[in-house]
């Protein structure tokens, strides 16, 4: 069975807004957060507040193409200079670091998974979110799609991000919530390409429920009547 999930809350962070301040996090812990982690924590906080949901309730999925590449670069620089690697950088360089921080900050012991899939990373976030919901049918799922910038010459033209850390958070509930749109996935059907922009437009003005169609590789939006 493919779950049908209600959008309990969502939140977006644009790099124009700078880096989130996160004043509610103790400074000792805040210092360890990369810009990517900060955006993830901000999005999660806003989603929990808007949905009035305890932050230890949901399972979590993080989708990011580059992940903590900026932190990894500090390790690569240490190695280049044959200097000892910083233990904090090493721990913070793992792709799912933001999930670790969120789990610790929120005392959240639910399962959490991080994914990456090149240009299909956005789609993979939704695939994994529905896998998580399938495996844990009673739990809400928080999806965080986050990205930070890295100098393009190193990554090549295929992966051209600029501007700084940004992201989208969607908190999905397995219960039908009145007045909230529903989201599901399907392998069949046609629709417009499900770009982050298209999904944001739908989140801002959800006339219909939405089916994300995933034929091979791509992800497309299909509006369906509630």
């Amino acid at each position, binding site marked *: 069975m493919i779950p049908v999930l209600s959008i309990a809350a969502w939140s977006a962070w644009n790099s124009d807004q700078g880096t989130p301040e996160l004043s509610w996090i103790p400074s000792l812990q805040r210092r360890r957060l990369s810009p990517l982690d900060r955006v993830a924590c901000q999005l999660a906080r806003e989603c929990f507040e808007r949905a009035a949901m305890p932050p230890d309730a949901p399972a979590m999925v993080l989708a990011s193409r580059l992940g903590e590449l900026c932190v990894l670069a500090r390790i690569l620089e240490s190695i280049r200079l044959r200097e000892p*690697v910083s233990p904090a950088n090493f721990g913070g360089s793992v792709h799912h670091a933001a999930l670790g921080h969120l789990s610790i900050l929120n005392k959240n012991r639910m399962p959490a998974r991080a994914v990456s899939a090149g240009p299909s990373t956005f789609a993979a976030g939704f695939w994994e979110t529905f896998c998580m919901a399938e495996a844990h049918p009673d739990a809400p799922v928080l999806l965080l799609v986050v990205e930070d910038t890295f100098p393009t010459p190193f990554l090549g033209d295929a992966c051209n991000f600029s501007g700084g850390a940004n992201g989208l958070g969607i908190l999905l509930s397995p219960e039908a919530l009145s007045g909230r749109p529903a989201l599901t996935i399907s392998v069949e059907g046609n629709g417009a390409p499900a770009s982050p922009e298209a999904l944001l437009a739908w989140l801002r003005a959800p006339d219909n429920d939405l089916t994300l169609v995933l034929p091979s590789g791509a992800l497309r939006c299909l509006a369906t009547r509630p």
Partner: protein
Amino acid sequence: MGMPAMGAVCALGCGREEISRALLSGREDFLSPMALLCREAEVLCGIVPGEIPELPAELRRFSCRAHRLAWMALQQILPEVRERAERLGPGRIGVVVGSSTAGIDSTEAAYPVWKETGSVPAGFSWEHQHEMGSAAGFVRDACGVSGPCWSLTTACSSGAKVFASARSLLRMGLCDVVVTGGVDTLCRTTMEGFDSLQSLSHGRCTPFAAGRDGLNLGEGAAFFLLEREDAEVRLLGVGESSDAHHMNAPDPQGRGAEASMRAALADAGLLPADVGYLNLHGTSTPLNDAMEAQAVARVFPDGVPCASTKPLTGHCLGAAGAVEAALCWIGLAASEPLVPRHLSSGVPDSALPALRMVNDARATLSRRAWLSSSFAFGGSNCTLALGRRP
């Protein structure tokens, strides 16, 4: 869920036959010395023996150590993958691959050149070699399939968590077959990183022994076909949990590890008494083994035959869950008793609850259900339950 085919490569060798022979050989010398970079010392590592073959021309853009190791393991299951792709269509076959560093060796070589010259060396492609998603992208292209495809990357639990995602793709009817598993290689980043945490052993690691002084790193790849159709070896259940404790250290009481094992048992509908063997995470760091021994003692108050295979393979990080699932698969599929045994030359740590270690690779154990645990940075835990068809 059936697991009809398995391919693996690690320090024990390449493929089911070689790995089985190594497990039964009684040999204890599978780890080899490698030099650290930032201080003058050598550490023992589980290096894949022999030559790592180059990729075929049509896949050459992916060439890096990780994808070449993946190719060694994948070739072992390609006939089964191709048969299903022809029968069901390539779009019905998904790919979920666990890795923590993908082809990082390419970036480790390219980064200093880029810093010093402003351009990357010829042949370097971040997108195809090091990008985390390339671990899954390579497997998809190498298998010629086109279903949903992504890399799952939660450090040392990656290669176990993939089974949860793969199974959900099958249960939701989004795929008919999923190629799943994990890959990671020895690299400077993890060697120097674990050294910075003072987590590397001075010799061969001695899990759960008194005076254990850390882990040996390893490398490997293991891939499985997972499908709804039953097979001799089955995936019975998956358990996941988060510690919510610390980025680099496990919960000292092992509550996350305990929750992960209990969740796997509940998911598989098993009682502790049904479990014939437990492949421990058993890294041999003082903290991991202390918390894991307590967790195992609470979940299995009557004891359970168990082993850490880290002294045989090294800790394969993002591939560990898949490589250790492969060792279990080999034991479960074997015609004669074959157990991925515990190898620890030390004296058991008397401060920890005593565990029933299996030292004999030919021990006869119930094969109804075997568990394998993997725990990671950020308190990310996963336990798999595999079993043999009665």
